[in-house]
């Protein structure tokens, strides 16, 4: 009965965006399959003890990282929620949002500057240990870095969960004279327990696909994950058969994890929004206050430490000489251009999917969702199942046979980074678009405002801020990414993280520290801008 209604251009845009994403992922799989069929015995022969050791280590480090991040986060979040008002609380929460945006390589350098063999703490640690401090490479380094990233994330998510406890429950608890212990058992723990599987799942997922941390802090073959092994197989050993096996194993592993996550109903995208402190009616006693303060200070020191170390060691570098260096300028320019393009593409793709999803949902009313709507809805989130390294590896193998891999590098970096940032961009754009559509949909239909007119007059003015938020966030993610550029980078295409890695590799530590400071500050500025823009929309 839809005769006479013009086709909705929003659905067309969404279909094109989906096709682009499918092409990117499909191409990678085509590369993998092509390589596997070309040399089936080679792929099979790579199933050796090394492979299983790598797979086991991948799971083991992810499990430990999750435990070490999530369990302390439970208590830090509770401590923060018990004290909704104290000086610096907002600043702490702001600080806890920084790791979400900080490039992994910058954090890794900060951790090395702090706990490394020549780090600021090396002297103290040597005195405690009684012998030479060996540095933090290997499993311990990986764990510290993962906790640095995920403890604040988990804390914020738990805090958000605690904020959902209705104020009336707290009023009731205070009237009944409930102490800290029963309040935890009866009110806080049930809420935290409900959030626990989702948060733990998200952290586990992030740790199992972690690349940069393991590459920079993992020491040699004993502490290698699947992703790093893929990179080494392609860039150093030129062993495509092994790369295929490793990649398939990584996909299978993440796929299983994501299935489990969806079962648990967790959200696979972290959020940059600040939870608001609710009004509280329960006051903590002196002993509890002291304990909570100690917890919060410890967490704060742990998170702020590497950041401070990044700043101080970065300032120690010869920044003037670095800024004048041609390679640095070239890499900065390359990074800026690629990240800008990736962010633009990411926002365009995300907006197309968001608009198509809304249009399809409006059209269908009560019927069951179509496959297309599912694809525009949850499809984008599934992108996270396929880590950038895997997509990069697939295309690397595919293009290798047809052309010069490194010539196509800029396209790969932009495309993969754009798609990887999509879940975050969608998260920024969708609520704004859906709310605007809720207000404007019938009016646009009635007045015949559609297509370009609609975008120009109606959608763009109400979406400027969410789009800018998504853009800034996508750009920060792309700027800091080392995954794809590690595979495709070369002397002719260097981004800042790539240059940073190569300076680390050639032991020019001071240079690396200076570059890390630069990169960290730019990403931080972008994310602060994203948050500021996002908040302005709500008020």
């Amino acid at each position, binding site marked *: *009965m*839809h*005769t*006479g*209604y*013009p086709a909705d251009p929003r659905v067309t845009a969404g279909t094109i965006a989906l096709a682009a994403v499918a092409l990117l992922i499909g191409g990678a799989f085509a590369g993998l399959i092509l390589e596997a069929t070309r040399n089936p015995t080679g792929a099979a022969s790579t199933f050796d003890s090394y492979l299983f050791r790598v797979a086991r280590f991948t799971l083991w480090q992810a499990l430990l990282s999750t435990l070490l991040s999530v369990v302390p986060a439970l208590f830090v979040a509770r401590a923060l929620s018990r004290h909704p008002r104290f000086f610096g609380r907002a600043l702490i929460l702001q600080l806890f949002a920084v790791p979400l945006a900080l490039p992994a390589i910058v954090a890794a350098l900060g951790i090395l500057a702090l706990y490394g063999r020549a780090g600021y703490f090396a002297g103290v640690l040597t005195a405690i240990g009684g012998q030479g401090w060996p540095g933090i490479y290997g499993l311990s380094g990986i764990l510290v870095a993962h906790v640095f990233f995920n403890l604040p994330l988990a804390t914020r998510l738990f805090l958000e969960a605690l904020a959902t406890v209705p104020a009336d429950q707290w009023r009731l608890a205070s009237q009944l004279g409930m102490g800290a212990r029963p309040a935890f058992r009866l009110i806080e723990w049930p809420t935290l327990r409900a959030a626990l599987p989702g948060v733990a799942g998200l952290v586990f997922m992030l740790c199992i696909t972690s690349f940069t941390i393991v590459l920079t802090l993992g020491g040699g073959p004993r502490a290698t994950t699947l992703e790093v092994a893929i990179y080494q197989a392609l860039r150093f050993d030129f062993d495509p058969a092994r790369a295929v096996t490793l990649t398939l194993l990584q996909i299978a592993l993440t796929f299983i994890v994501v299935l489990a996550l969806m079962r648990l109903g967790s959200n696979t995208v972290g959020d940059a929004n600040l939870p608001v402190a609710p009004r509280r009616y329960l006051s903590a006693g002196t002993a509890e206050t002291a304990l909570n303060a100690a917890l919060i200070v410890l967490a704060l020191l742990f998170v702020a430490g590497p950041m401070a170390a990044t700043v101080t060691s970065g300032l120690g570098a010869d920044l003037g000489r670095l800024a004048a260096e041609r390679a640095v300028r070239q890499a900065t320019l390359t990074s800026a251009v690629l990240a800008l393009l990736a962010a633009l593409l990411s926002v365009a793709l995300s907006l197309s999917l968001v608009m198509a999803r809304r249009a399809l949902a409006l059209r269908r*009313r*009560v*019927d069951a969702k179509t496959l297309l709507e599912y694809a525009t809805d949850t499809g984008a989130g599934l992108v996270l199942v396929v880590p950038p390294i895997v997509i990069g590896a697939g295309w690397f193998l595919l293009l290798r046979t047809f052309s010069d891999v490194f010539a196509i590098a800029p396209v790969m970096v932009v495309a993969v980074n754009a798609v990887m940032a999509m879940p975050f961009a969608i998260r920024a754009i969708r609520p704004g678009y859906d709310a605007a559509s809720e*207000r*404007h949909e*019938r*009016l646009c*239909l*009635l*007045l*015949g*405002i*559609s297509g370009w*007119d609609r975008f120009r*007059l*109606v959608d763009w*003015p*109400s979406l400027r801020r969410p789009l800018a938020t998504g853009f800034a966030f996508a750009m920060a993610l792309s700027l800091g990414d080392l995954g794809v550029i590690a595979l495709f980078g070369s002397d002719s295409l260097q981004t800042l993280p790539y240059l940073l890695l190569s300076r680390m590799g050639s032991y020019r530590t001071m240079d690396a520290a200076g570059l890390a400071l630069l990169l960290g500050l730019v990403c931080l500025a972008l994310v602060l801008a994203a948050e500021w823009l996002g908040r302005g929309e709500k008020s």
Partner: protein
Amino acid sequence: MTLNSESGTAVRLEKVSFSYGEAPFLFDVEFAASKITAIMGSSGSGKSTLLNLVAGFETPRSGRVLIGGADFGAKPPSARPVSMVFQENNLFAHLSVERNVGLGRSPSLRLTEADHAAVAAALKRVGLAGKQQRLPRELSGGERQRVALARVLVRDRPVLLLDEPFASLGPALRDDMLDLVADVHAERRMTVLFVTHQPEDAHRIGQDMVFLDNATVAATGTVADFFTKAGPEAFRHYIGAGPFGAGSRDVARKRT
């Protein structure tokens, strides 16, 4: 437009059925040309659905939607000779009053001198002269609905659908707005379909009445007939005892 003949434009739903997936609505009813017809009925009886079918926001499963004799059942809303005012969200919050009204002339906001003059005249007519550059948030609730009425004037369609547009206004303001609608109707002679919960609204400006019950048309007649003791029993039961043989204002103030 030929639809806008001397005799006005009648609206007729001919055996129109529609469903949200549950019990179907069935409408077979005619709204007289150039009259104000009040549409009343309890929540869920299908008042808004009926207007949405005429406006084109819903597509009937079967039957015909005749406006001025032509079947518009499959036409998109903007292609129908119809204007509509909703209870809220009638304006784009980021556009000025003038631009919101101008959209009634051109959906791309490319306005000629004549269009600008028409917009200014319409705003003057609804009592908003001098407020062209305001944003909707700088207006009161009543003023916002006046802007919507100004847009109805510049659109100049022969049928006007009012979906409880004044339900969230106070009693005195509501009476002002009703009188404005009645005045505009006296000038333009458009066919008005007016959904309301308030018997006194229907009494104030309505000429005909369509009463819905159980997803279908339960009774039709003149407003005068409805408010006598001889009115349909389901209707008298709906409005209860009160000044119009009707319930108190408060009971009738719930919204759909």
